[in-house]
């Protein structure tokens, strides 16, 4: 049984400004603590032992869900998976994100864990990332020096690695409105373990040219089959301007499987990518026709 944590100095800023001041001082020796559902287990397993822990979960500035037809969706980094999955606007307009958040862990974990923590942990199997990739989200990141915007496909640099420095925090996830006449979904299979970690996750978004009855374009993102979740760009290319007939769907599934680089159980994972891409596209296509 894992029970105790190594000592650290504790800070509990109430504003973003206070938080980044502390991080500016301690940099990589400090760790930000949000819901703690990833960080506390990592500390208990002694994978990391920060000297300073900066608890940000009381920062009320980072708990918003705002939506506007022009600006799209803005989610504060500290919004929990539970709040996202039960938000009516997200369920209506960004259903695959609600579905991905509802896949995470258990009801307790979804209530404690935040979307900011999910992306900053940056594990290859983290469930919100494929959805954020196809929604072409961007992260607002703040440090003492100011703020910058990082597009989701530049945010992840490797397994458990992100483009943010130890002096920065993610404050907001910004998601543009999906293209009109588009549909999207997230599907997965899990390992059969106590935490049902995602073995393969597939998010897809199809844009439709309703007049011509063809697919204008597709975005496909794969999780847990490479060092980080990624867009399967070659598979996406095959779809552009085409009708999604079963032969084409087979070709897309095959292309997606070939773009993967699983570290373990590679044959099984590749086969699952093919099957999941196929079932996701068939499901979406049936909604569009």
């Amino acid at each position, binding site marked *: *049984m*894992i*029970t*105790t*944590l*190594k*000592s*650290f*100095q*504790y800070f*509990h800023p109430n504003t973003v400004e206070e938080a980044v001041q502390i991080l500016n001082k301690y940099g990589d020796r400090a760790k930000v*603590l949000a*819901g*703690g*559902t990833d960080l*506390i*287990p990592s500390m*208990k*397993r002694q994978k990391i032992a920060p000297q300073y*822990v900066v*608890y940000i*979960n*009381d920062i009320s500035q980072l708990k918003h869900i705002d939506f506007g037809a022009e600006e799209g969706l803005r989610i504060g980094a500290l919004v929990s998976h539970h709040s996202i999955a039960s938000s009516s606007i997200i369920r209506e307009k960004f259903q695959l994100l609600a579905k991905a958040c509802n896949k995470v*862990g*258990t*009801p*307790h*974990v979804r*209530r*404690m864990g935040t979307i900011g923590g999910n992306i900053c942990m940056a594990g290859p199997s983290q469930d919100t990332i494929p959805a954020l990739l196809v929604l072409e989200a961007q992260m607002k990141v703040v440090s003492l020096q100011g703020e910058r915007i990082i597009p989701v496909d530049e945010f992840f640099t490797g397994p458990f690695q992100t483009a943010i420095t130890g002096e920065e925090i993610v404050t907001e996830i910004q998601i543009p409105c999906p293209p009109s006449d588009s549909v999207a979904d997230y599907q997965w299979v899990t390992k059969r373990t*106590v*935490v049902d970690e995602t073995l393969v996750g597939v998010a897809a978004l199809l844009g439709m040219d309703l007049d011509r009855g063809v697919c204008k374009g597709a975005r496909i993102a794969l999780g847990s089959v490479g060092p980080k979740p990624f867009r399967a760009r070659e598979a996406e290319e095959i779809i552009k301007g085409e009708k999604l007939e079963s032969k084409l769907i087979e070709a897309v599934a095959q292309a997606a499987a070939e773009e993967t680089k699983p570290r373990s159980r590679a044959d099984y994972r590749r086969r699952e990518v093919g099957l999941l891409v196929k079932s996701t596209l068939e499901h979406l296509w049936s909604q569009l026709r």
Partner: protein
Amino acid sequence: MSKEIARFTINGRECELLIEPCTSLLEVLRDHLELTGTKSSCGVGECGSCTVLIDNKPQLSCLTLAITVQGKNIVTIEGLASGNNLHPIQQAFVDCGAVQCGFCTPGMILTAKALLDDNPNPSRDEVKEALSGNLCRCTGYVKIVDAVLAAAQIMKKGGA
């Protein structure tokens, strides 16, 4: 490292403790306050046996630093009965045979309490979903779900 003061309400009582910031709420409950009804098992968020209510929501005390619950209202299994009268959910667990070794029971009951406070008339599936983060190695869950549904009926009749 230096200790800090944590203040919160536990089962209706104000409480002030000097603790190291690395202490989990689970350790504070069991080792400092001797409230051993809250069970410690996996320690990493997987089993739900350490569930407590923080501001009426089920949370995992093994993943919660005690220093972060400043000013919050915490309820453990010791806080449910009034005197010698069991809470209706506790009584239903006894009556339905939903307790075997009992290790998962405190977490199950607190999770069920939060569900019924939110949704007094849940379906069987809603009960299963709400309890899906609480593992039981003994019962096979059927009687636990029966007990929560039975408690819902009793509480609706004003038994709480």
